[in-house]
């Protein structure tokens, strides 16, 4: 459904995306995980036609992004990281504007707006100006807007950044509901739990490159199921083991405070890059 072949984005003297290739299958939730500045957003901007591709090629819904951007735009929805809603307009008017941009007919527009405002639990607030909305409400409206015209591929750029844990859950539920409708979703995140919870497969990005790609389970298995993590004061490196007993045994040989726990995607990232995903 989405295919990148050696994609490159060069800004003056910075190579933001450096030869990235991967494929997103139809109907899956595909995550791009990495720290800020890894090139995730730039990748999405190229796929959604907002940024020109320096080298390589990309296809979305079988359409070449550089060759036919208008056709690509008909098939995609984007919820960007910034909450770029029309704050002077109401929730209803925001969706109406979007529907009109995508040339939806009046009747279809009206039915769809109601359906989506109910789905995002904003129907009661439909006539309220968006500038009076909370961050969580804006984020829900942003996702509703992105799927208003029933795109085949949905791009979500950091969909829960800056949200409270409880509201983050609510957004995750929305995304899972969309997956069950068969929409292909490409989501970027620098939250470990988000990638783990939402994604069928995860591509790990660092410094413009894709450093690993697999299911969260496989990525963790390849690193080792159990991690022995040292306390900060201890300063030793984390080590990974396939079995719990080996991990415990190793932990007993280390001086100072250590924790034995299941490996998470951040451990995978650290093992691959030697760096930490910082917020």
């Amino acid at each position, binding site marked *: 459904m989405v295919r990148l072949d050696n994609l490159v984005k060069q800004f003056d003297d910075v190579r933001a995306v450096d030869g990235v290739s991967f494929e997103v299958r139809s109907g899956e939730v595909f995550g791009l995980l990495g720290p800020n500045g890894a090139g995730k957003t730039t990748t999405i901007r190229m796929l959604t*036609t907002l*940024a020109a591709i320096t080298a390589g090629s990309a296809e979305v819904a079988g359409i070449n992004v550089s060759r036919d951007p208008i056709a690509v735009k008909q098939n995609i929805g984007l919820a960007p990281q910034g909450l770029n809603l029309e704050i002077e*307009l109401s929730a209803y008017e925001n969706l109406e504007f979007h529907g*009109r941009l995508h040339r939806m007919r009046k009747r279809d527009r009206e039915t769809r707006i109601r359906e989506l405002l109910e789905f995002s639990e904003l129907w009661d607030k439909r006539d309220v100006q968006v500038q009076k909305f909370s961050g969580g409400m804006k984020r829900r409206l942003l996702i509703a807007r992105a799927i208003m015209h029933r795109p085949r591929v949905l791009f979500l750029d950091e969909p829960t950044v800056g949200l409270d844990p409880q509201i983050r859950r609510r957004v995750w539920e929305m995304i899972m509901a969309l997956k069950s409708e068969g929409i292909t979703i490409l989501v970027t995140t620098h939250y470990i739990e988000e990638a783990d919870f939402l994604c069928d497969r995860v591509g790990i990005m660092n410094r413009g490159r894709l450093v690993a790609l697999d299911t969260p389970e496989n990525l963790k298995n390849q690193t080792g199921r159990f991690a022995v993590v040292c306390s900060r004061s201890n300063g030793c490196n984390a080590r990974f083991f396939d079995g719990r007993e080996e991990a415990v045994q190793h932990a007993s040989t280390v001086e100072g405070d250590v924790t034995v726990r299941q490996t998470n995607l951040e451990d995978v990232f650290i093992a691959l890059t030697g760096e930490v995903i910082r917020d």
Partner: protein
Amino acid sequence: MIDLGFYTIFWREMLAIRKKFWKVLSGSLVMPLLYLVTFGWGIGRGVRVGQGNYMDFVLPGIIALSAMNSSFNGVSVTLNISKLYYKTIEEILVSPVSPWAITLGRVLAGCVRGMFSACLIVLIGLVLDVNLKFGPGFFSVVLLLSFAFGALGVLAAMLTRSHEDMTNFSNFVILPMAFLSGTFFSPDVLPEPFRSLILIYPLTHGSIALRSLASAQSVPFSALAVLSGYALLLFVLAGLSVKRLEL
């Protein structure tokens, strides 16, 4: 094929204007009222230009100036904020509406703003009982002028990279044009080469055309030709700048 998406862009602008109608109304009135008071009644009292009084002379110029300002500022400021601050332009850029339709929708919204301002001053003129005529030809030129400056507004918003750039553009391009385009004085009183130089400004031709029409004289063909040429050129440049915009 004509992309009807321009109407959606225009519709959104009209919706926004409706919501802040009083702000738009008062914003359109302040500057022309100040000019009317300063130049019409203040400095202009007792001044005669040719056969008529100064108010009859200056009013069409102020209408041209207001149409320019309302259209240019209305388009450039909102678009610049949408590009740099709210990023709402991204939603439009990822929709299948073509760059030309985006440009046209915005420029037409500028035309409405320009026409609205012009109508307000025409009303003031009627109240003051000026000896001027405001017919369909007059309003067609206001429309053409607003179109050209709406397009310049799109172009400026696309090319500038910060709010400061935008202010500089206004200071170095729009402000000199406002004062030097024969709005408050007749270009004929200037010595050469200044008289010829100010003919570069589209607003000079707007003022000349509106002044001729308001005093029931025939419009110089050159004024209409230059104004139309500017409208077309600026629209093409604006469309290309939207097309090349990368965020």
